[in-house]
């Protein structure tokens, strides 16, 4: 008997159900149940009256936005230089930038924390932002680099031909055409930073707690239901970000790279 083509997808569907769909349902059930398993909105309501959790969420968003902004500020020029054949003749430089991504993020973060310690920096907001920016910078550089590399040089020539100085070529052509890459980069930095926990612990010696840390603490102390509710809220925040970013990219129409 011939196996239908659909049949090939069965292992993946099973995998998805066990490791993605089922856990998500569990998170939902736990979030909307009390310790005895009865349906309730109490967990969610508790969060909105928990000033500690609210301010931590605000801090998390703040840190994530700042990290993303820093990554963009540093990453865009780097990506532009890497994609520019005048400055970068070989692929070696780009590999050097991508190389840290091959290493486990926790090990990298531990090393960074040690480095800051050695240099005598006081752990706190400064080390957190610096460390996270360093950690996530490649995720910003790579998608932008990719889009810039694929941008047809003839657009720049056409703009110059029409009288645009190199700066205007960048502002009116290169920058708008690289927006899909920027959006990819922003998503890839913002989403993991807003939910991070271990990295902030290492980098600040547990001085700064982020939203991810609170979830982890709740779950570690067996407060499953509240932890699940917080996770659900986090999911919704990330979902909204992704949705807005994707929507924006669709309206751009110009096919960039979705790494």
């Amino acid at each position, binding site marked *: 008997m011939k196996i239908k083509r659909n049949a090939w997808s069965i292992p993946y569907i099973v995998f998805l159900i066990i490791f993605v769909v089922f856990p998500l349902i569990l998170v939902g059930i736990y979030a909307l149940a009390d310790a005895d398993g009865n349906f309730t909105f109490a967990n969610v309501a508790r969060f909105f009256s928990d000033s500690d959790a609210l301010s931590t969420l605000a801090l998390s968003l703040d840190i994530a936005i700042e990290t993303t902004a820093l990554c963009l500020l540093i990453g865009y020029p780097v990506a532009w230089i890497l994609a520019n054949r005048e400055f970068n003749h070989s692929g070696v430089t780009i590999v050097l930038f991508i190389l840290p991504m091959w290493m486990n993020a926790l090990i990298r973060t531990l090393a960074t924390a040690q480095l800051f310690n050695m240099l005598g920096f006081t752990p706190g907001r400064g080390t957190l932002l610096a460390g996270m920016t360093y950690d996530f910078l490649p995720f910003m550089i790579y998608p932008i680099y990719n889009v810039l590399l694929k941008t*047809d040089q*003839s*657009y720049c*020539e*056409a*703009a*110059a*031909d*029409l*009288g*645009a*100085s*190199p700066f*205007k*070529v960048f502002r*009116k*052509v290169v920058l*708008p*055409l690289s927006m899909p890459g920027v959006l990819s980069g922003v998503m890839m930095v913002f989403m993991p930073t807003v939910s991070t926990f271990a990295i902030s612990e290492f980098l600040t010696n547990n001085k700064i707690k982020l939203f991810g840390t609170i979830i982890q603490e709740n779950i570690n102390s067996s407060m499953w239901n509240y932890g699940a509710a917080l996770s659900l809220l986090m999911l919704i925040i990330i979902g909204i970000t992704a949705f807005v970013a994707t929507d924006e990219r669709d309206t*751009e*129409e*110009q096919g960039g790279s979705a790494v």
Partner: protein
Amino acid sequence: MDNNRTAIEICNLSKSFGDKKILDNINLKIRQGEFVTLLGPSGCGKTTLLRIIGGFTEPDSGTVLLDGRDISSMPPYRRPLNTVFQRYALFPHLDVFDNVAFGLKIQGLKDDEIDKRVRKMLKMVTLSDYEDRDISSLSGGQQQRVAIARALVNYPKVLLLDEPLSALDLKMRKDMQIELKEIHDKLGITFIYVTHDQEEALTLSDTVVVINEGRIQQTGTPADIYNEPQNSFVADFIGESNILNGKMICDRRVEFAGHAFDCVDEGFGENVPVDVVVRPEDIYIVGQTSAGQFTATVKSRTFKGVHYEMFVETDTGNELMIQDYNSFEPGSEVGLIIKPQDIQVMKKERVCNTFSGRMTDSTHVEMLGGVWECLPQQDLEPGAAVRVEVDFNKVDMVDNLDDGTVTGEAHFILYKGDHYHIDILSDEGWHIYADTTYVWDKGDLIGISILPKDLRISRSDEN
């Protein structure tokens, strides 16, 4: 307007990419309002020349003058020229209006002025009502029009067009040719147009500049280029032609295909080998063999719509292509007449191969990146610089590359009626010319060997 004013002048321009010479000492004057076409096969350097005029490529040496002013070191955005790019390069993030308005916005014009000029230009290229359309929603022909409008809206002094119609299908290309010509006549702007399509060049241009291997082969009006080609490359590249080896007997008398003809050319000298070009429509064919200057047998006949194309073999064994409204049966004997003014005589660029080399010992010479056996040379010591001459028909071409002393590829092939004249580009970059009756195709890899007795060696005057 003074139509004899020079708009663009190019002086001693050269450009190499690595070892490869793309442009070799180009000199060219383009008059104000002229429609000039740079015509040549791909890789001949025509696009590089256009890019140098536009400022996108820097020349190694030489200057570009615009209205007498040297603009060689001026960046493209300061040059009052605009370009229509081969793949249009329309900005995908802008709509039609903003694409066309791009240059005017950069200039900082007022909004209502921009609006007026963009709409006027879109109307000229018949794209009114397309202002808000996305570039990706336009057809190839429409994108082409936007690209032309985007360049012309800036009122450039010179418009550069880089094979602008090559991406369109035949029908649309013909329509756009007519439109381009009309736009040119209407605006009076100097057009510099790059194409590899000889028909397009002849149709559109006031002046055609034929380029090959980085050099200008001929500059002239379309009629000049067609009727009076200056060398066999131009004759072969422009239109159909019969190119034959001939001999100038004396002024106004030339011999080719085994017969002597009256012609209008003079000043070549007596008994000088020449190339002769006769266009296929210039050979008159008559059924009565006695009425012709010489006779031939019709070998094949193809109906081409307006005319018949026939290949005939002359009584002396040369093949000629003839185009005529009358049809003659294959196999029939016909008489042929060629009128004096239809015979175009060209100086031969070379009569034999001349290589420079060096003796390695008394029976071997090193040249073209190989070592060749030759007849014993008593009076030439090893190491002596020599000049080696080889007749075209003594160059032996073989399929098996290992059998050749050097190898190369067929670079340019010319049919000469009873044999092929092949320009072989050796792996080391030398040109070797060979006559053969075997059929080779452009790009074929060829092994080359030459018999020792066919190398004519003499001490070189150089050194």
